[in-house]
């Protein structure tokens, strides 16, 4: 067998290359990095609606009345244009409402993307949902964290996390940095939003393009990811806006908090930082309960944690008891509101948004005191 290296110099060069790659996040000084904007500029529609997020954070300048922020569950749950229309009517001016959402859960994404947003735009109210994980509390970083986490910028935010979690982010930074550094050599092309490309994206994802809905994902799929089964729901829907509940000592019995959070968990860490970030920017927080299909018979609003306590920040909890939301509906009809067990399709989105909008506007008018 021939040796791996033809000379000791070759072996030395390989060792040096490995060392440079592993130390890249430390070796490149912060001053030499491309602007953070370029992180979003490198992410295409194939990864998520990051071109829209990029535009909203860096190109738009107006103050935002309500920003819906988080992963696909809340992305699919709110009909943002309807909320904007109703809020505009209430305020007597054109309200600014957007959905700044992406695929995959994790409060780390909420924290880092909210941080970029709040550095560039003033936001009155941020609406989020439980991002701590779909199947139990997620112990790993957001699946796409390696694309947007930069150790040079964000290392301070890791302080207090277990070493393993810190190492994972560091490794993510090794993976993501070369693509980011490429932005120094040549510009990233603007996203292709030609009619052909838009049609292709709509056909691939079975949605109405989020750019046409202030960022919201309007999913045209039937249950079990079946676009062929999607049809407009025309049956009777049982709940009304008066069934929507915000948490107070008087309504506490309508909520069920399932767990006590582990103090050093990754999700707890970032949701706390998210709360502090919102407080520092005088932004009100609303935690909206988006019901899973499996919760449909629940007689209380199921939340994993009591968020104001976990976040150590004022948060308004908002939701509707699932058994009231789906009262009297057959299982088949309930399924017509979802495209999978966790996500509303267009039917569910319209129903849910019409219910929660009046209360959300009421909360907008009277945010909790910090």
């Amino acid at each position, binding site marked *: 067998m021939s040796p791996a290296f033809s000379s*000791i110099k070759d*072996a*030395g060069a*390989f*060792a040096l290359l*490995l*060392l440079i*790659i*592993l130390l890249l996040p430390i070796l490149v000084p912060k001053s030499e990095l491309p602007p953070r904007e370029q992180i979003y500029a490198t992410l*295409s529609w*194939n*990864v*998520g609606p990051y071109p829209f997020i990029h535009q909203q954070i860096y190109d738009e300048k107006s103050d935002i009345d309500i920003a819906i922020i988080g*992963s*696909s569950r809340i992305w699919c749950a709110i009909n943002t244009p309807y909320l904007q229309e109703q809020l505009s009517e209430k305020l007597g001016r054109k309200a600014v409402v957007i959905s700044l959402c992406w*695929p*995959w859960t994790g409060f780390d994404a909420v924290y880092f993307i909210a941080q970029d947003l709040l550095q560039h735009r003033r936001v009155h109210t941020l609406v989020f949902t439980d991002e701590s994980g779909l199947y139990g509390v997620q112990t*790993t*970083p957001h*699946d*796409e*964290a*390696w694309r947007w986490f930069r150790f040079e910028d964000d290392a301070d935010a890791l302080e207090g996390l277990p070493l*393993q979690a810190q*190492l*994972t982010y*560091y*490794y*993510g930074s*090794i*993976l993501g940095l070369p693509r980011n550094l490429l932005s120094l050599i040549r510009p990233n092309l603007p996203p292709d939003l030609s009619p052909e490309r838009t049609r292709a994206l709509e056909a*691939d*994802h079975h949605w109405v393009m989020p750019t046409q809905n202030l960022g919201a994902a309007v999913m045209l799929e039937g249950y079990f*990811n079946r676009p062929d089964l999607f049809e407009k729901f025309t049956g009777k829907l049982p709940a009304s806006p008066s069934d929507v509940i915000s948490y107070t000592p008087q309504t506490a019995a309508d909520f069920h908090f399932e767990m006590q959070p582990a103090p050093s968990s990754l999700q707890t860490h970032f949701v706390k930082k998210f709360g502090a970030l919102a407080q520092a920017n005088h932004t009100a927080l609303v935690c909206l309960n988006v019901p899973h299909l499996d919760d449909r018979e629940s007689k209380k609003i199921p939340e994993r944690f009591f968020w104001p306590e976990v976040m150590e920040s004022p948060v308004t909890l908002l939701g509707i008891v699932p058994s009231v939301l789906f009262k009297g509906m057959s299982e088949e009809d309930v399924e017509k509101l979802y495209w*999978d067990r966790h*996500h509303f399709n267009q039917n569910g989105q319209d129903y849910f948004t019409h219910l929660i909008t009046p209360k959300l506007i009421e909360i907008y008018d009277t945010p909790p005191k910090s």
Partner: protein
Amino acid sequence: MIPRQKAEWIIYALIIALSVIALTLAFFSSSFAFDNRVVYQGF
């Protein structure tokens, strides 16, 4: 001057150590999504 044999030993030990570190980091980070095609299936 470091003898050639000792230099070889140091470099190979370094390569092994760095490879172990890289593999360990990769193991911790196996949850990252790299394939764009699967993104929206998991949503």
